[in-house]
């Protein structure tokens, strides 16, 4: 068990180091997120509704699209470098392999979110105030779930012909739900509502995370093995 975790961390570290060296993907994903924010800003009617009312939806749609971009690049890079074949030949348990990819993707998505959130505050001139820790926590809780599903699907999508199209088509039906729940929680956080009003959504997020993380660890082997 500990050995598998150690392997996972080694794989994740290798992935992230390769990413940091090139940096192109991180920069592209961040710029993409910024542009999505800009589109949202320009496409809203300022007289109709205030920015803070839109905030949860804008923030989460941006997070969702940026996550898809991030997940797409994760396996594309690997396909180009043929790195995964080496890993598959080594006796790495598939669960550890998944965890490694997953942790790297999670770190990547988290980094993009960490840059997107301040940009959102700046562009939309929204004061997150005391809601900030809650929003960060919600983002983490939601990302844990959909990044797991995304890691499995991007491993599949990369082996298909229309990889960049296949990933969103497969992933979005699964991503809509944690995003929806995260929006409900974020809206209540910004409204200063008590925790009791968010518990239902939080529990759903936690349940989703546990169930899908477990499921993804179990099925990942079927995706990468011949």
């Amino acid at each position, binding site marked *: 068990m500990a050995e598998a975790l150690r392997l996972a961390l080694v794989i994740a570290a290798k992935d992230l180091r390769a990413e940091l060296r090139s940096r192109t993907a991180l920069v592209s994903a961040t710029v993409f997120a910024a542009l999505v924010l800009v589109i949202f800003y320009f496409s809203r009617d300022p007289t109709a509704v205030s920015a803070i009312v839109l905030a949860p939806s804008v923030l989460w749609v941006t997070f969702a699209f940026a996550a898809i971009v991030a997940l797409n690049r994760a396996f594309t890079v690997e396909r180009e470098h043929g790195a995964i074949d080496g890993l598959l030949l080594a006796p790495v348990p598939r669960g550890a392999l998944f965890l490694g990819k997953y942790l790297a993707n999670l770190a990547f998505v988290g980094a993009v979110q960490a840059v997107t959130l301040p940009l959102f505050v700046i562009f939309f001139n929204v004061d997150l105030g005391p809601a900030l820790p809650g929003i960060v926590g919600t983002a983490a809780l939601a990302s844990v779930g959909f990044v797991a599903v995304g890691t*499995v699907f991007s491993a599949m999508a990369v082996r298909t012909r229309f990889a960049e199209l296949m990933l969103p088509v*497969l992933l979005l*039906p699964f991503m809509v739900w944690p995003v929806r729940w995260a929006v409900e929680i974020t809206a209540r956080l910004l409204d200063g509502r008590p925790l009791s009003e968010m518990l239902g*959504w939080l529990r759903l997020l936690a349940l*989703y995370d546990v169930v*899908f993380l477990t*499921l993804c660890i179990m099925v990942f082997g*079927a995706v990468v093995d011949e």
Partner: protein
Amino acid sequence: MTEPLDPALGRARALTRRGLGISAVALLAFAAACGLALGFTPVEARQGLAQKIFYLHVPAAWCALLAFSLVGIASALYLWLHDRRLDLFAEASAEVGVMFSVVMLTTGPIWAKPIWGTWWTWDARLTLTLFLFFLFVGYLALRAAVHDPDERARFSAVLGIMGLVLVPFIHLSVYLFRTLHPQPVVLKPSAPSLPWEMLRTLLVSVAAFTLLYVGLVTARYGLALAQRARESGDAA
């Protein structure tokens, strides 16, 4: 060029024919159910004639959910047993399921418009229908995009299982949303207690649709087996 007799191909063809036969009978049953619904069932007072769409929409929903569940179960079994026939069955059930989903997605809005005044509503049934449709389409798109049959079977199975696991979350989410934002219950399309004539008609329709599902999946499965027999015949 004469084709060598291939027993597997012959069996597949026979299965396809049997499936089509069952489907033909089911279509007759469907016609009978329609006649029953249109001619021999009382008109609902508040919704008028449009309520009769209920006798098509609900059975289609049942079949779509049945089809989807079987895709999920067959997927799980495939990953465990590696029997290719489970994969082909899942393919058949997915295709038939998407067809029933389309019936749901068209009859739903046609029914909703006169009742609720809107083409679409994010209620439990329509939301689940929409997502079943997306999942079915994703499943079939994935199958179309993977060329190697073994890889296709493995990938589809993973997607099938994950889709099945997602369905309870959709239920929970819609339920949670509904308890917090109670919908106006002005005109509920399906009353909890149906008068006997309506219940009878609904059951007949459900039986017809289920028989149609069985026939169509059998035929489609036969086609899949035939295609596999063809492919391995060519390779031999």
